[in-house]
């Protein structure tokens, strides 16, 4: 792919020495090479984005830069001086701070305690620390008493505390790992404003993300990583999202487009007025209605945390609805437990296979039984049919191309993609009438992803009804026959996959979409993936 080094377009004078320079970084783990000869150069006072797919090696690279892992080969230079980090403390001393994607905050401790932890020597833990925090808090836009318990803070404020932690320790170079993953759009805008202000004050940012539109909105330059190597560094003003995406993925983007419609009239899943509340009474699901027909894929789009997980778990019976009905092929399942719902013909691909789909320490054939312990071929009445389970597991391994040395190995030894293929094989083997697929290709390599899409499409052609939840908008648009957009526990828009673009969906998902009288999303007719 093209290896473009772009001249900086900033108006400030260009210092010769980059803030951070990584050269030739290589890192190997048993069985896999995470980073291979990576080069990265970040100028002082810029927001530099690092983009790549899941599994491309971004996180490992950042862990190396932050001192959490040592590189096997290669050098790190900070402000022109070569450094070697043995632990995060060394990186912190060099002025590098990291804001993790999953916040590292202790809920039961105060903001002050969280910030000073590990850095008590700098300003103590009393008045001086409090004063310093007050000074810095303004820079990050945090306006509250440092004695507040962190558990009382919302997500955006917690992120500010994380940035504060980093500044408190004297960082001038801040690494942000997927910072917008958990923010709603207004919060994203606020964050970007904060970053712009801080950039003007001389801070340097390294921004990891795979959300290309956001990256283009804030970054001064973008470096793309694929399969552990740098593909190139570009100026966001000169590339389109589509070009960036192709840099990330390599060849042609796999296209999950479905052509022929196989949607029938037969209602398989009907959800009426489904409501779920928190213990305090706030609605997580607010009187939802949906219908999925045989041969139809209904996609649910939405920013994570707006109720999709809760919707799926309530339909599966893992959570108890406060109101409303769930009907499967006419049968009222509202009072039934999870096992009964599965037996009625629902297959479930959970979004987190390691926690909800597999028993990691058990062999593959034992995992085949999970969820099917009352049915053939894995069981006979009250007894398990281990031979039957083994036989069917072999079938799944073959049909779904699960790469494994055998069926006796523990599920934990398989790679993510193969684990997912096993789960899908299992869930399709019970001859379900409804398949609930929650982020079915998350953490799965591209080859397995294509195979999974094929399996879903084939099942759909055979009459299966599918409820698909996904954060991958291309997957959603490509696979679905109809799309609903979910926001804060409610359906706010319907969309036509044949005419909607990821940008349109993105707008609707963040509350900026416009709907017509029938609830259908009004789409922006620009066909190009350019800046909105």
């Amino acid at each position, binding site marked *: 792919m093209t290896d473009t080094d772009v001249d900086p377009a900033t108006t400030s004078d260009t210092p010769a020495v980059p803030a951070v320079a990584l050269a030739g970084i290589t890192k190997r783990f048993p069985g896999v090479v995470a980073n291979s000869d990576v080069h990265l150069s970040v100028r002082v006072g810029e927001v530099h984005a690092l983009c790549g797919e899941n599994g491309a090696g971004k*996180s490992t690279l950042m862990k190396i830069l932050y001192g959490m892992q040592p590189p096997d080969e290669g050098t790190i230079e900070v402000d022109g001086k070569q450094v070697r980090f043995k632990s995060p403390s060394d990186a912190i001393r060099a002025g590098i701070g990291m804001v993790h994607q999953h916040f590292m905050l202790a809920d039961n401790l105060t903001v002050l305690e969280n910030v000073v932890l590990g850095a008590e020597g700098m300003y103590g833990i009393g008045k001086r620390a409090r004063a310093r925090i007050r000074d810095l808090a303004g820079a990050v836009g945090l306006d509250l008493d440092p004695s507040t318990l962190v558990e009382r803070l919302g997500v955006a404020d917690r992120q500010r505390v994380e940035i504060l932690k980093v500044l408190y320790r004297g960082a001038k170079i801040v690494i942000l790992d997927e910072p917008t993953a958990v923010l709603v759009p207004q919060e994203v805008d606020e964050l970007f404003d904060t970053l712009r202000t801080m950039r003007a004050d001389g801070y340097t940012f390294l921004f990891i993300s795979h959300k290309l539109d956001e990256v283009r909105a804030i970054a001064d330059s973008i470096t793309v990583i694929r399969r552990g190597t740098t593909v190139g560094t570009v100026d966001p003003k000169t590339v389109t999202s589509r070009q960036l995406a192709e840099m990330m993925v390599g060849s042609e983007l796999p296209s999950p487009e479905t052509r022929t419609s196989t949607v029938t009239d037969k209602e398989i899943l009907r959800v009426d007025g489904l409501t779920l509340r928190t213990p305090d009474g706030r609605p997580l699901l607010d009187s939802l209605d949906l219908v999925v027909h045989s041969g139809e894929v209904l996609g649910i789009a939405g920013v994570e945390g707006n109720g999709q997980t809760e919707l799926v778990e309530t339909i599966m019976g893992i959570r108890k609805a406060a109101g409303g009905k769930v009907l499967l092929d006419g049968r009222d399942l509202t009072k039934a437990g*999870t*096992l009964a719902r599965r037996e009625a013909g629902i297959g479930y691909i959970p979004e987190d296979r390691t926690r909800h789909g597999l028993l990691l320490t058990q062999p593959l054939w034992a995992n085949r039984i999970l969820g099917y312990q009352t049915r053939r071929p894995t069981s006979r009445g009250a*007894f*398990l049919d281990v031979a039957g389970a083994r036989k069917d597991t072999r079938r799944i391994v073959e049909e779904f191309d699960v790469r494994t*040395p055998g069926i006796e190995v523990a599920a*934990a*030894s398989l790679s993510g993609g193969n684990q997912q293929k096993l789960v899908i094989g299992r869930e399709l083997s019970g001859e379900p009438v409804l398949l609930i697929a929650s982020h079915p290709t998350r953490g799965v390599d591209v080859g397995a992803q294509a195979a999974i899409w094929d399996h879903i499409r084939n099942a759909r052609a055979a009459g299966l009804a599918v409820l698909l939840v996904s954060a991958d908008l291309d997957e959603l648009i490509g696979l679905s026959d109809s799309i609903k957009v979910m926001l804060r526990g409610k359906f706010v828009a319907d969309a036509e996959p044949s005419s909607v673009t990821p940008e349109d969906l993105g707008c609707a998902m963040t509350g900026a979409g416009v709907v017509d009288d029938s609830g259908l999303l009004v789409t922006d007719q620009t066909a190009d993936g350019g800046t909105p």
Partner: protein
Amino acid sequence: MNARLRSSLLAPALAILFSALLCAVALLASGANPGSALKVMIGQVGEGQVAVDIVNSTAIYILAALAAAIGFQMNLLNIGIEGQYRVGALVAAIVGGALALPPMLHWLVIILVAAVAGAAWATLPAILKVTRGVHEVLSTIMMNAIAFGLAAYLIRRDNFGILIGNNVSTKPIPESGQVPGIDLGDRGTIFGLVFLSVVAAAVYGVVMNRTRFGFELKASGLSPTAAAAGGVNAKRMIVVSLLVSGAIAGLVGLPEILGRDHAYTLNFATGYGFAGIGIALLGRNHPVGIAFGSLLWAFLDKSKVALDNVGVPREIATIMQGAIVLSVVVSYEIVKRVELAAEQRKVGQAMGTATEPAGSSS
């Protein structure tokens, strides 16, 4: 399969070895000779009633360990076995002494009553766990203590106790309720209920590995979230597991009561509960492992008397038991870590695929 067998045996073997070494050191420190202590311990098996005693004790320990193992499968620590067996034995003895039924029916009723009483004593901790989230360790320990009080209360002379010689006991169970054993003359009598233990262990093995209930139980212990998604009702499992564990615990006192004492007396034995936990850990919740572990425990128990006779403090055996418990869990952890790393490496190399190492994401 052989590799698995070997690695499952490795950890307990290491643990026993380590504990033996520890005790040898302790013995040396106290001026005794470990070699002669060991000789005495082994030699006494051939004398008198010791061998039969060991077999009888093994049966009792097997029941206690099965009760503990059922809890362990679900990550529940039923420390309450102590109290549950006390209550089970006492209530069964009282009922047994009060009824007059034809022989086989009589013992079956007694066994049933013991199981129900044991399960009843486990009910409160089970309910507290699922409704209030109270950890079963604390609640069962409290129930154990209260069981002592209850036993003392029920065996009062104005309640169910009667004075026999210098000892207070419950009304003796008539002949129809006494389970015959295998009389080996001078060598002693093997309790009839030894067979109950063996049957129980076999049933346990079958249920755990071959039934839906056993699968759901194990799954709930391994990953409550995956089990829930797979249709298992976690709360129901917790209650059932604790109740079944309590029921089996209730049976622990029966071999002695039905086979020898025919009543519950003040001298009723203690300590089986913790022994059961240790053995279940040693035997990895596996019926064969439990059987061997019980044998070892019984052997160590009986050797206390022999050690006494040669002037070695009998607590060495207790220390050995405690050391075994600790070292076995440590060695299991070590073996498990080594194995998992090896397996991951093997799969990664064999497949040439990118196995995500633990702890790294994108």
